[in-house]
């Protein structure tokens, strides 16, 4: 996804032209060979769940009976839309998240056209608007750039290259199968592009005036780190102090050989901190074991665990292994709708153990390892292969981590240069220090 080249200019026009054609195709009668592709796709979906769902009775259902119920329906499907509807109905019987049939157009909308170059700012979708939430992503403070070059917190991004972002956001949010997390990822891929490429953006400033900017895309922050078959990722780690409060942030749970010692060093440097903040906003997760490893630096109690992962062939407890010099002072974790997977396991588990107080907005609810396979008919098929229950007994999948203190970023506070979520956590830590 990251290596695909942007398709400027005609992209929207092309979509506009193809849209009606695509709709027409949905309604077109299937030929015999096309029908067979739908049947083959149905069998792929059914068999995958039979073989890979963590429960031998997926969703508590007699899965063979489900097959026998829906197989005649897929055979009778006369259009692509009907066939897709049959498979979606079958998946709906599971009553579980991360099982979805993604039409090719939808999958493309999510994937975007990427490139790993960053314009140096980050965004979130706030009340349906793409808002700048960070201007130091590339290591340069864009807010301090000279007149005509600066980008400020709280500005709305209304276009990136040829992409009309409000239109894209509206389209993505209209599909209930696409979570906020995927919406933000899709937008991020639109604002990115090849390193060195100059991309044109249009913003709305605080007064609602259009502000055009041509921004040369930079290499992403951090060091390139590989992990097995995963494509190399840029991973960065940040530790600083806000007064007497330690602040840790990293973009992914990856680059284990570098991040784990860095995390340990930060804990060591923060031994006398009034409190510690771990900022997981925008962190999509990574290596699950790193949640256990990092949490081990934050507790001195043994026999604790973050939660339990259930797979077909094993039940794995996400245990904590307390380090000798663990930090046991006040701990705040910052999250939002783009905190996913390992971030949720980490935050949710420490919340359940009453070890951390969570600030921000509800996380993505995407804690499970899920895969997306291509079906014979060209659709995407997303399926989860494990269930995860946090230590408090709640499934994180689909639910996410609900903060103890809900603090929403607002455009107004960002325009004032204020990170309301971090400020709330710092204030809570200061209050802890005042308690007798």
């Amino acid at each position, binding site marked *: 996804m990251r290596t695909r080249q942007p398709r400027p200019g005609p992209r929207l026009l092309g979509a506009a032209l193809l849209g009606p054609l695509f709709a027409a195709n949905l309604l077109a009668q299937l030929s015999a060979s096309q029908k067979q592709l739908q049947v083959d796709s149905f069998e792929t979906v059914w068999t995958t769940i039979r073989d890979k769902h963590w429960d031998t009775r997926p969703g508590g259902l007699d899965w063979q009976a489900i097959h026998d119920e829906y197989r005649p329906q897929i055979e009778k499907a006369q259009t692509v839309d009907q066939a897709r509807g049959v498979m979606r109905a079958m998946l709906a019987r599971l009553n579980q998240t991360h099982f979805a049939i993604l039409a090719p157009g939808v999958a493309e909308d999510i994937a975007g056209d990427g490139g790993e170059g960053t314009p140096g700012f980050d965004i979130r979708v706030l009340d349906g608007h793409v808002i700048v939430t960070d201007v130091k992503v590339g290591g340069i403070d864009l807010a301090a750039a000279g007149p005509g070059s600066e980008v400020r917190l709280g500005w709305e991004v209304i276009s990136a290259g040829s992409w009309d972002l409000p239109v894209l956001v509206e389209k993505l949010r209209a599909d209930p199968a696409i979570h906020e997390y995927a919406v933000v990822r899709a937008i991020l891929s639109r604002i990115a592009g090849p390193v060195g490429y100059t991309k044109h953006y249009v913003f709305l400033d605080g007064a609602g005036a259009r502000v055009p900017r041509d921004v040369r895309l930079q290499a992403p922050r951090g060091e390139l780190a590989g992990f097995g*078959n995963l494509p190399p990722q840029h991973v960065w780690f940040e530790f600083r102090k806000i007064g007497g409060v330690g602040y840790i942030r990293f973009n992914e749970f990856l680059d*284990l050989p570098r991040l784990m010692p860095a995390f340990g060093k930060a804990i060591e440097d923060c031994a006398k901190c009034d409190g510690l903040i771990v900022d997981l906003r925008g962190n999509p997760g990574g290596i699950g074991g790193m949640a256990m490893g990092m949490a*081990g630096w934050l507790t001195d109690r043994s026999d604790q665990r973050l939660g339990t992962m259930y*797979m077909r*062939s*094993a039940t*794995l407890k996400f*245990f904590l292994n307390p380090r000798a010099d663990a930090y046991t002072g006040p701990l705040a974790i910052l999250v939002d709708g783009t905190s996913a997977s390992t971030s949720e396991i980490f935050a949710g588990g420490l919340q359940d153990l009453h070890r951390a107080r969570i600030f921000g907005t509800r996380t993505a609810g995407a804690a499970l390892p899920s895969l997306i396979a291509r079906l014979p008919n060209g659709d995407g098929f997303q399926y989860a292969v494990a269930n995860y229950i946090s230590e408090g007994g709640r499934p994180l999948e689909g639910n996410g981590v609900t903060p103890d203190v809900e603090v929403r970023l607002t455009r107004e506070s960002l325009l004032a240069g204020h990170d309301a979520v971090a400020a709330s956590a710092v204030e809570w830590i200061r209050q802890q220090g005042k308690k007798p």
Partner: protein
Amino acid sequence: MRQITRIGRVVALGGALGGAPVWAQAPPDAAAILDRYVEVTGGRAAYEKHQTEVLTGVVEFPAQGLKGKLVRYSAPPDKEYSILDLEGIGLIESGVNAGAAWEKSVLLGPRVKPGEERDQAIREAHFNQPIEWRKLYQKAATAGLQTVDGEECYEVVLTPPAGKPEHQFYSRKTGLLVRTTMVAASQMGDIEVEVDFADYKGFGGVLFPTRSKQRAGSQELNITVEQVRVNDAIPPERFEPPTDVAAMLRNAAGK
């Protein structure tokens, strides 16, 4: 992660590998199967000449694309030190010495293994296991004839003094260990483990399976043994735990 366990020691006797089945009808007694394994792998005398072993090999997680180098030092009665340097993960060390079992990794730090996990680690570290099975298990029984990857095998159930039984599958034709299955105790919980052994090669007069494929939970890992150096001088301190583990052991002992 479970280390190479129960790497079979087999004397390089090609004739023995191709020998006719000893038992044609009823499954033989478990003791006979286990002793036959020692026999077809060279016999007790060959094992007893081994005083130390240093195994080097490669560990791969094919699904994840992860790979690392493994070195394992072993000495009697049950001393072991292993170090695995896994790309993207870092160092994972583990050891058994003087009745204690431990592990240490970049990911999780140092840890002393308790209870059943410790007992299993000590059992697996026991030097020259094949000739000492009577000391390690209180019961061995033949469960019947099974087919493992198309090969007829005798299934032997070994029951330790404490903990869950282990199942071993010995080729009816060659007498070699082909597969083991067991429930491994770990900090993450009990995990069903199945290990297939292949490509037996001789080192210091004893054959070792140089390829093993292990399935544990949803993970699959392959271990390829490159070399086993026999009777190298291993300094005693090699088996001493790292200082942080040693401190944990002292704390646990109340010293």
